[in-house]
């Protein structure tokens, strides 16, 4: 599972209004990893995600999927969009069908002509995402958490290799955020690459294998969470706060090495005990 699933070489994107959304972006997305894209509002995260799915075409630069250049002919785009699934921030922008069952079938119908195959995949997806009770309901009558699950199910049903999620936990409470990330983790466990854009630094720190930090259409740094989040000045430059565990660790132990940052509260407690015991002795 080595190598990069997508590479961006010097990608620039300018909106028709003249606004520069991305400016000379070079980025490599490693296959099979959990990647978090961070940046303040207007950093170009959503534009980048739309470029990955081939919805937008770069003004300058190249995108490569598994080493092959993106091509924007209808047939090539269809092939690309099958492999790169895109989950939108606002579920209402994605839901089109009158029932959950039909919503999940929408992408599959565009992909396959065999109705029996589509039906079996829809059933499988409904089972995997525990949507049995709401399968005949209108997506607009669902709660935000259920809507997000339906959107995810409709994309996962198409079996993409890379799942791109624009703020998957937006509008969700803690419980539904946990459910959503559990699903994402499960998918990553099956070998899929997951890329999310988020403002939740604590979640990104605990969850991601790779963190990409953006500012005003440019990539500031790409690396492991410990490496990225330990760089306080860069975080400030991007207009993002450090995760609470990193901030607390740096405040308590200024000389702490970035590899020693605790990943969760239990590790933090353990570290705190160790240091306290060492101080006493």
């Amino acid at each position, binding site marked *: 599972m080595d190598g990069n699933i997508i590479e961006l070489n010097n990608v620039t994107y300018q909106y028709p209004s003249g606004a520069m959304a991305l400016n000379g972006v070079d980025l490599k997305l490693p296959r099979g990893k959990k990647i978090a894209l961070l940046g303040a509002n207007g950093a170009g995260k959503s534009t980048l995600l*739309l470029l990955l*799915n081939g*919805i937008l075409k770069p003004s300058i630069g190249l995108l490569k999927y598994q080493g092959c250049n993106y091509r924007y002919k209808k047939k090539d785009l*269809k092939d690309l*969009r*099958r492999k790169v*699934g*895109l989950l*939108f921030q*606002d579920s*209402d*922008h*994605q839901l*089109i*069908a*009158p*029932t959950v*069952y*039909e919503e999940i*079938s*929408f*992408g*599959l*119908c*565009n*992909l396959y002509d065999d*109705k029996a195959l*589509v*039906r079996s995949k*829809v059933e499988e997806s409904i089972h995997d995402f525990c949507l049995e009770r709401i*399968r*005949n*309901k*209108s997506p*607009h009558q669902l709660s935000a958490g259920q809507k997000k699950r339906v959107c995810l199910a*409709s*994309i996962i049903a*198409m079996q993409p290799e890379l799942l791109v999620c624009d703020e998957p936990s937006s509008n969700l409470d803690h419980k539904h955020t946990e459910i959503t990330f559990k699903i994402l983790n499960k998918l990553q466990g099956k070998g899929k690459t997951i890329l999310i854009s988020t403002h939740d630094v604590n979640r990104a720190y605990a969850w991601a294998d790779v963190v990409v930090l953006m500012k005003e259409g440019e990539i500031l740094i790409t690396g492991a969470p410990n490496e990225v989040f330990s760089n306080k000045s860069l975080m400030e430059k991007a207009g993002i706060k450090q995760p609470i565990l990193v901030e607390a660790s740096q405040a308590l132990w200024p000389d702490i090495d970035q590899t020693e940052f605790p990943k969760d509260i239990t590790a933090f407690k353990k570290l705190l005990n160790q240091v306290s015991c060492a101080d006493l002795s």
Partner: protein
Amino acid sequence: MLISQIYRHQHKLSQLPIWIRAIYVLPCFVLVLCNKSELFNALVSVVYLALSIVVTGVSLRQMLLLFRAPLFFIVTGCLTIALTFNDPHPFFTYKGFSFGWAQGNLSVAVQAFSRSMALVSMVYFGLLTHTISEIAEALKYIRVPKILIELFILTFKFIENLMRSAQQMYTAQKCRLAYNGRKRLKSLSILVFAILRNAIAQTSQLQVAMESRLLDDKFDFIHPKYKYHPFDVIWPTMITYILFGSFLIIRYYGW
């Protein structure tokens, strides 16, 4: 009141194939279009109103609210046919203008009213027992061009987005003391402009979302496989026979 606000997916016919549901509506639809009896039209209006309530579980009040908009246009249209200016036998005169009933047109207006109400009643029954995708599938079956089906689905979605935006923006405006005194008209104009801009933006987002899920030029959805019993055909057939019988009785015995 919008159909999408009261639509219930778990209505009594939801597990039946579309063709069986079509038997409830189509034969009678043709009868209404062919006949000239106001009594038969009134009967059909009542039957389908009652059927809508029984099958979907929507209350009578909600159904009557649903009828408000078509009723307004139908009544306006029928009055236009029935009323005449400068009538020699006016029922109302104002500053030299006299209004009267156009004798020849009155029966046409009554017939148009009864037929329109019967058709609206049946269309509502059809819309409350079929999803938009099922209607789109039916349109596809009768070879309506793809572009029109796409327009049909997007318009439906556009209206939904429009209404949602309107509701949210209206509430947001009211929270900021809009619609008070002389500000009423200005608030309304701002609302209309903002709603249209927002709904168009949302609809383009929807288009992007559909493209990301490989939208070709076809709008296909798959429905679950319906399991039905041959006896399921009995009810719609019976209703059709009863209405057809009533049609014949009214036509030949003049009831």
